[in-house]
């Protein structure tokens, strides 16, 4: 039988284990008294910071019109080809608006390039991370799901102005 060599021989106290077990228990009890970090999701929801990149959404102005001018840059820059935009003409001063704006959430990789490239600050990453769908069709979000009132996005817009 080969005798196993230790780097350091255990002292007497270490060899009887009692002290060591006691030391370990101190650590355990210490942590029991600390505040909990586990979140009871879904009863408790995680509120992400402004820097969080949740699903991309379209900014809806207070008058109900979307900011987007359907320039298609988000669609062009999207590395996953998740965004499809179809422009059309509007009488408003911005001349064009997205007749169709669809993001395929199965393709989206939450990189935030669309937000970065947008010349109008019209598409931003939201705090929404709860994306559930049961078929491919449901995963394509149209304007109905994408438009979010500007007041709900203030956090992110301020963050962008500061750090973009």
């Amino acid at each position, binding site marked *: 039988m080969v005798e196993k060599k230790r780097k350091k021989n255990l002292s007497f106290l270490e060899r009887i284990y009692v002290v060591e077990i006691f030391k370990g228990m101190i650590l355990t009890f210490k942590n029991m008294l600390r505040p909990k970090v586990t979140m009871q999701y879904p009863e408790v929801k995680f509120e992400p910071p402004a820097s969080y990149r949740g699903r991309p959404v379209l900014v809806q102005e207070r008058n109900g019109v979307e900011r987007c*001018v359907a*320039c*298609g840059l988000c669609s062009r820059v999207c590395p996953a*080809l998740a965004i499809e935009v179809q422009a059309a003409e509007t009488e408003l001063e911005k001349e064009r608006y997205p007749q169709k704006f669809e993001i395929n959430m199965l393709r989206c990789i939450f990189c935030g390039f669309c937000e970065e490239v947008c010349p109008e600050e019209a598409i931003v990453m939201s705090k929404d991370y709860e994306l559930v769908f049961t078929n491919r069709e449901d995963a394509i979000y149209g304007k109905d799901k994408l438009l979010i009132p500007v007041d709900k996005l203030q956090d992110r817009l301020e963050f962008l102005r500061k750090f973009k």
Partner: protein
Amino acid sequence: MPYLTIDEKRVEFNQGQTIIEAAVTANIDIPHFCWHPKLSVSGNCRVCLVEVEKMPKLVIACSTLAAEGMVVHTHSDKTLEARNAVMEFILINHPLDCPICDEAGECKLQEYAYAHGKGESRFEEIKVRKEKRVQLGPFIKFDGDRCISCSRCIRFSDEIAKANQLTFVKRGDSVTITTFPGESFDNPYTLNTTDICPVGALTNQDFRFKSRVWEMSGTDSICIGCARGCNTEIWVRNNEILRLTPRSNEDVNSDWMCDKGRLNTFKFVNANDRVDGTMIRENGELKKVEWSEALVKAAAGLKEFKSTEIAFIGSSYATCEDNFTLVKLARSLGVNNIDFTQHILPGDQDDILIREDKTPNSLGAKLVGVKPAPNGLNLEGILRAIKEDKIKALYVMEEDIAALSNEWEEACGKLSLLIVHATNHNRTTLLANIVLSASTFAEKHGTFVNFQGRVQRIKPAVGTEEMDRALDGMNMSRWDKFGTKFDRWMQGHKYDAKPSWKILSLLSLQLGGKIKYEMAEAVFSDIAKTINEFNDLDYDVIAELGAQAKIKQTLAV
């Protein structure tokens, strides 16, 4: 030959050429907005300033004549600084609205601002605002803000379209473009100005906001609007044609095409009345059936008649390949009655591009032999024979024969068997017993012969059900390359249609004939072998710009 030196490169030139012309022949790029090779020199944009040794100041390359021994620098510090300054000047009043501008992506100003601009503006004042969304003519929207006053559109109207309709008004930074009082910008060539406009000031109303230019694929093609056969490019997204633009070909259309050709020759491809799959008439109603069933029925139908009771109608809308195969099928059945009709609008012709003959391939149909064989009947003869019940079966390829006249419509109604190749539903399909859905010019390979006898190629830009963009070597946009069947932007409808030569070839198999073509190229090589005018030609020789058929002038249509 005299020569000058541009950027240390020896460039030969012809006496009378300007510096920029000499540079273009040597593939040296000098930035330019107002200069256009087909238009007179105007010299107002100043962006082509270059340094010429021994000249005290910089000169504009577009109006300075090249001279023996001249030494030109297009990238010296002095030139770059001047170019930068000119760009800054032009950009002062140009709005930063590329995101909503249709020109973005093919805009000269955008390109030069990127290549030669400073990247930032020192201009803090308010930009001059001008009229936006002006309806300049029936097909053109004008945006005054974006205009950089290069005068290309004005010179085009005067010099190429020969219609003096546009002019500058006001001066300085409020200069803008308008039509003369009482005039509308409505000559037949207006939309060419949207192509030559270096910015997005003039935009095509029909294409307005339909797509960003980088989302489409471009495919070389030929306009089918008249016998000129202008070289065009077909722009497709999601299997739908969105616009046509002219392609440069000095021998045919220079850089231009007419508005009618540009706007009216492609919409039928994606129209609601497209024939989608083969159809057979049962109890007075057209019913969709499989190709095999329709072809068997057509073959059985033709076999019931004597060869003298059958007539074939070719088409000047169809390609040479289609017509040639039709002639071959007729011959194999021993049918002598074969002809086609031209569509001539007397008087609708000018010295620029537009021709009276409104079909792309009358000469081609004639050359490949769509004419009555000895003892055969021509078009009028066929009509008379149908009336006299001598001809009972008519095989019509890509021609709305019933729309020619009421007489023809009545005659079509009298037939025992009417087989039609059609791209769209029309008056003939209403009467047909069997409708075989034919591919349009944008969905097949083939050749047209224009009125000059120039053989030109068309290529598929839109896919039919039997085609695959990648496997069939069609041009693809980024979307086409990476799309899957689950992406909505890939679900553009593919029609169930085949090119006429293929339908004829399949039908010939059912009739026990020997026509077995797999590719349009094979049909053409057969044409080249059997018809003198096409000797020595093949798809590679025809290439992008076409090749001349060996025709005698007397044959010209």
